[in-house]
């Protein structure tokens, strides 16, 4: 979306340091699940601000959800999870979108320089201009967020309205929320507000209420207050998301590859210098003359 080089903190597949020099506070979108009423105003605002087509002409699939899942042109979704807890039915209305991880697996998985950037304020953005459509980010993401468009061959996801935020506005979804379920502000403010809300929930009987800001991905810039914080799964959130697979994939394997490629070439050069070429001495040349014409078939000759 709006690409802001001066605020870029990390760039995918880059061998040189990122260009960012701006000193800006990290931002967080706080999602207080306990006060979501499932009105979907955020979904509408997202589609409208980002000029994304409504792709809702699908058969009814037994839920109030707009779509079964995120899509390349549908970047955020209220999940209407129907679960049982303590013998009661609960509807966990949970806004789902890119989490804008502190340590983004997508960015580390991406092989295309500059296709994924992380801004100093914590927003992780896809730069479709540089995207090659390999889909590595889909496997790198622990939250299953990036979506590949079959028509453009590029991936898309929530930008946390990086264009609005860079102009000093809150994301469109936050602006549209009628219940203050969504808040947007600096990391310190939002975490303080989240902790305060958790205490409020505990006081009214939700003794397992907790903040969802998973450390396995370096914390996120979309943070939840979960009334049943001991079981994030009922909200459709992974319990311990991590990028440990990306560590193996983009860490250990790369060095093994380098060792084999460069070690192999170096080994061959050293071997050649030490042992030289292996030549067979020429036999005594045969004097010219008629050659006997053999008749047997040639073993090992298929042609």
């Amino acid at each position, binding site marked *: 979306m709006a690409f802001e080089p001066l605020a870029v903190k990390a760039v995918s597949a880059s061998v040189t340091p990122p260009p960012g020099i701006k000193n800006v506070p990290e931002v967080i979108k706080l999602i207080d699940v306990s006060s979501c009423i499932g009105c979907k105003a955020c979904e509408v605002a997202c589609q409208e601000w980002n000029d994304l087509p409504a792709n809702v002409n699908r058969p009814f699939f037994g839920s109030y959800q707009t779509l079964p899942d995120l899509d390349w042109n549908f970047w955020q979704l209220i999940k209407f999870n129907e679960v049982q807890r303590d013998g009661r039915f609960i509807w966990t209305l949970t806004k789902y979108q890119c989490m804008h991880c502190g340590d983004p697996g997508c960015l580390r998985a991406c*092989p295309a320089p500059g296709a994924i950037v992380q801004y100093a304020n914590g927003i992780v953005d896809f730069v479709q201009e540089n995207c090659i459509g390999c889909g590595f980010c889909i496997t790198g993401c622990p939250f299953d967020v990036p979506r590949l468009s079959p028509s453009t061959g590029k991936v898309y996801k929530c930008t946390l309205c990086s264009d609005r935020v860079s102009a000093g506005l809150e994301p469109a979804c936050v602006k549209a929320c009628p219940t203050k379920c969504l808040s947007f502000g600096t990391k310190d403010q939002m975490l303080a507000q989240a902790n305060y809300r958790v205490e409020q929930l505990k006081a009214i009987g939700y003794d397992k209420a907790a903040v969802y800001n998973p450390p396995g991905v370096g914390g996120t810039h979309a943070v939840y207050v979960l009334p049943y914080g001991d079981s994030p799964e009922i909200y459709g959130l992974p319990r311990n998301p991590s990028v440990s697979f990306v560590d193996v994939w983009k860490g250990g394997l790369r060095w093994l*590859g380098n060792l084999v*490629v460069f070690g192999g070439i170096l080994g*061959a050069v050293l*071997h050649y210098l030490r042992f030289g070429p*292996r030549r067979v001495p*020429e036999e005594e*040349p045969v004097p*010219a003359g008629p050659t006997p014409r053999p008749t047997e078939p040639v073993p090992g000759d298929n042609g």
Partner: protein
Amino acid sequence: MAVQERRRVLVRRYSLFERVVHWAVAVTFVYLMLSGLALFWPPFFWLAQVLGGPTLVRIMHPIVGIAFIVALLVMLAMWAKDMVLDRLDIEWLKAAPKYAAGQEEGIPESGRFNAGQKLLFYLQVVAGILLLLSGIVLWFPTQFPAGLRQVSFIVHDLFAIAAIGALILHVYMGLFYIRGSLQGMVEGVVSRAWARAHHGRWYRQVEGTSAVIEEGHD
């Protein structure tokens, strides 16, 4: 031609068909290696630009991969019977350090292929099949679950690394260390001395057949 002209004795080593298949495998492998390295490690990304741009490389890599697998399977059918490891091959492998150190003595004679070539062949076939299976998963990431995709990335990278390591060895042997090999795979013939020295058992099989030719006669 002068009657006194001296001629070398040559031995037919690879038919035209075998050479075409070998170079089809070789060319597709090199494309897959270069395009794969471009996506594997950012300092190699410039290779994608050389090969026509990164998005084109992303589209072409799996398609060339299918061509590679087809050529590799033809090669497997073509050479399977020549690639069976026998007792003398085991002896050869034990003597491999001597062979690598350039010694002539104490190395058992090889058949059409030596044990090192056979192992390289098996490695490439196994790697090729695993690269194909994992590559299909990576080709269509939205069609497969995350766990399978993760395993496929590890398998694809590991066996690509193994195959590239084997290729470095193969190119070094064929182009630099064992002089006279390249002629076999390009022109299809090797000198009789080369055949005796490197593939003695094979030479005795073809001795006296039409595979042995004198330059200027055929």
